């Protein structure tokens, strides 16, 4: 029932590695954002909150083997939480974001309990129902949630010690990337912890895992709650960056895009979540530009981006079923093999475990 013990040395190594990864990443982002234009910084901020949600979803799917089509709605929970706390209650940024993650985690508990009893398409269906149903609550209680109009908050201005010329967009990129790095740190350590090992055991064979004394349902619920908290944090940042939480942002398409981002990025891989986030930020703009580069009648060109988006998704899934990260990984191992053969060194490296590297 308890998580299998991980040797202390390994644990410390994981912690050290992830901590240094986060520090280097943070420094890089602090530097890079200074060189980027305001719009690129804004896109980086979009990428940051998408990453938080995608990383949670990819760990859920890759580590625990559960598919959620409801993560857009969990983002909405986080978004409305931080919107209400910052806008109505005057909370500061950090506690509001912590609360966003917390409230989503709490909502994730019953959802996770239900999810641990469902499999495959039934699980997808249940979470999809959540994604479809939840945004309607905003219309049901317009006095609290502002109906279709949504909630607006004032922008979180950069602190004064950064100087008066510090761009708002750069500050927003910092907030979003900081949250993304926290998510990365937590999930990386989770994946390499005893809990991660239990989850993989449950994923690979539930009967074997329960024979070993692991509680299948409890493990799956834990995975769902962690994943929900990540999505909630992403949603909280969404509100801060866009200064808006509205039902239109969290329609069912968002959940589908998130799952698409995870799958195309590389299911189960945290690096893949970065690819997925980049895709979600850039692909809509690219498809739009592409659609406009043909001079078509407005009725066609206005709807073409969605069609292109769909074609890209289908093509990517047919050509690269293990996602961008999976593609890179097999490319890497192919190159390794080639080099190995040329230098006549015997023995190929073993295939690395694919889950959540």
């Amino acid at each position, binding site marked *: 029932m308890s998580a299998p013990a991980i040797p202390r040395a390994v644990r410390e190594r994981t912690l050290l590695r992830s901590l240094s990864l986060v520090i280097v990443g943070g420094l890089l982002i602090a530097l890079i954002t200074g060189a980027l234009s305001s*719009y690129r910084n804004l896109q980086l901020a979009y990428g940051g909150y998408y990453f938080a949600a995608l990383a949670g979803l990819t760990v859920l799917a890759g580590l625990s083997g559960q*598919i959620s089509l409801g993560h857009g709605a969990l983002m909405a929970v986080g978004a409305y939480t931080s919107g209400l706390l910052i806008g109505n209650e005057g909370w500061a940024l950090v506690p509001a974001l912590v609360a966003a993650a917390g409230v989503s985690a709490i909502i994730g508990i019953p959802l996770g309990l239900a999810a641990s009893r469902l499999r495959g398409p039934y699980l997808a269906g249940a979470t999809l129902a959540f994604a479809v149903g939840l945004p309607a609550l905003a219309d049901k209680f317009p006095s609290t949630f502002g109906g279709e109009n*949504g909630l*607006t908050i004032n922008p979180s201005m950069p602190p004064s010690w950064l100087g008066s010329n510090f761009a708002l967009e750069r500050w927003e990129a910092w907030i979003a990337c900081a949250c993304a790095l926290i998510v990365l740190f937590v999930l990386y350590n989770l994946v390499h912890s005893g809990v991660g090992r239990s989850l993989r055991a449950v994923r690979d064979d539930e009967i074997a895992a329960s024979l070993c004394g692991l509680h299948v349902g409890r493990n799956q619920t834990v995975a769902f709650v962690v994943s929900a908290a990540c999505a909630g944090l992403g949603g909280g940042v969404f509100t801060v960056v866009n200064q*808006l939480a*509205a039902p239109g942002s969290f329609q069912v398409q968002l959940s*589908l895009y998130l799952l698409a981002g995870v*799958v195309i990025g590389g299911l189960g891989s945290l690096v893949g979540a970065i690819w997925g986030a980049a895709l979600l930020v850039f692909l809509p703009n690219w498809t739009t530009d592409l659609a*406009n580069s043909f001079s078509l009648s407005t009725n066609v060109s206005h709807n073409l981006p969605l069609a292109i*988006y769909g074609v890209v998704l289908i093509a990517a899934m047919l050509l690269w079923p293990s996602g961008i990260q999976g593609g890179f990984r097999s490319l890497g191992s192919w190159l390794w093999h080639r080099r190995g053969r040329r230098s006549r060194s015997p023995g190929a490296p073993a295939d690395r475990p694919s889950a959540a590297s």
Partner: protein
Amino acid sequence: MRQTRTQALAAAALVVTALAIAACGSSSSSGGGSTSAPGVTSTSITFGSHQPLTGPAAPGYSEIAPASQAFFNYVNAHGGVFGRKIQLVYKDDAYNPTNTVNVVHQLVLQNKVFGIFEGLGTPTHTKVVGYLNAEKIPDIFVASGCPCWDNGTSQPYTFGWQPNYTIEGKILGQYIKQHFAGKKVGVLYQDDDFGQGGLAGIQDEVPASDIVAKEPYQPGVTTLAPQITAIKAAKADVLVDFTVPIYTAIGQLTSFTLKYSPQLVVSNVGIDPTTVAGLLKTISKGKASGTALIEGAISDGYLPSTADTSNPWIQLFMKVHAQYDSSAPFDGNVEYGMANAYTLVQALEAAGKNLTRQGLISAINANGSKWTGPGLVPFRYSSTVHGGYGGAEMGKIQGGKVVLFGGPLTTDPTAGSAITPFTGTQPAPPASGVPTS
């Protein structure tokens, strides 16, 4: 490994299926660019706009920005304004506030537009007003009558253009009070500042005891059956719609199915006959053709009726339409886009050759209330009032066309303020069709 791949494929299949089911897209058009001052060079001025090119508000409204661009093309062909050609970069926000925020940031930060012109919609544009004013970016002639644009003190960079919905509601309300005295009134309204502003105007004029039903709807819903049923159950004799065209159409089809036929009164934004007739036909899958379901509806107008082909303004717009925008039908939306564009050209002329963002704002504050143009009543612009046209004329749908009657009326949005006839005349447009300062 095998397990993950199977899962990936399963998830992939799920996503493809689900995306195939999910409809509703987003798109935009791009272009523009700049050199030194944002959006202005010696030969060009670039404005940006967010428009519902797809989504629930697209039918009809998606014609507005292309019509404005058509009028700018006409002005550009006549030498532009101080030698500068006007470009409008309009992007789709699908009437979804989140997209509006994204698109407006993109226009300002990436396309580096001089200002936002004709940003369409109340729920959408309210989300960017704070940003535009904080960045001191001109937010000119919002395509919405929300009373919330009308605040020159707290939002000096934002200007409304069409009559404030409360003004419209008051004028419609006065007509109801005078001509349907003692009748029961039901109001169907969009649950945002648009519908609430209009409702406030109605309530200012119509006695509270006569208003038997107030039914809001959320933009994006696909049925109005609960609302119409409630209004019918309250036995309203007069149905007032503060709706965008698609909900006018859905409401009328629902009333028809419920065999409920009250006197219809619709705010100007929801009644363009060409648009509503098209929607009625599409939604009913061809069963309701023409404008029979809105015939006799009461509305109001602040521009000449598009059916009035003897009006020199309509003649001008029809000429521009035939030359630059012939793929769209000539309807109220096209007229709206051109008339709004005409006002922007007036503002740019008034701002002078050395165009700055602040200069444009000051020019509208100082001169806007004196401009004459396609509007039937004057603008209310001053340094504190940013609310657009100060009134409208009553109208009726007759033979599928808007027929205005009774002469223009003016008022202001303050509760209890009087509604007075406007006696000034409307001058014909300049011979070239291009406004001069």
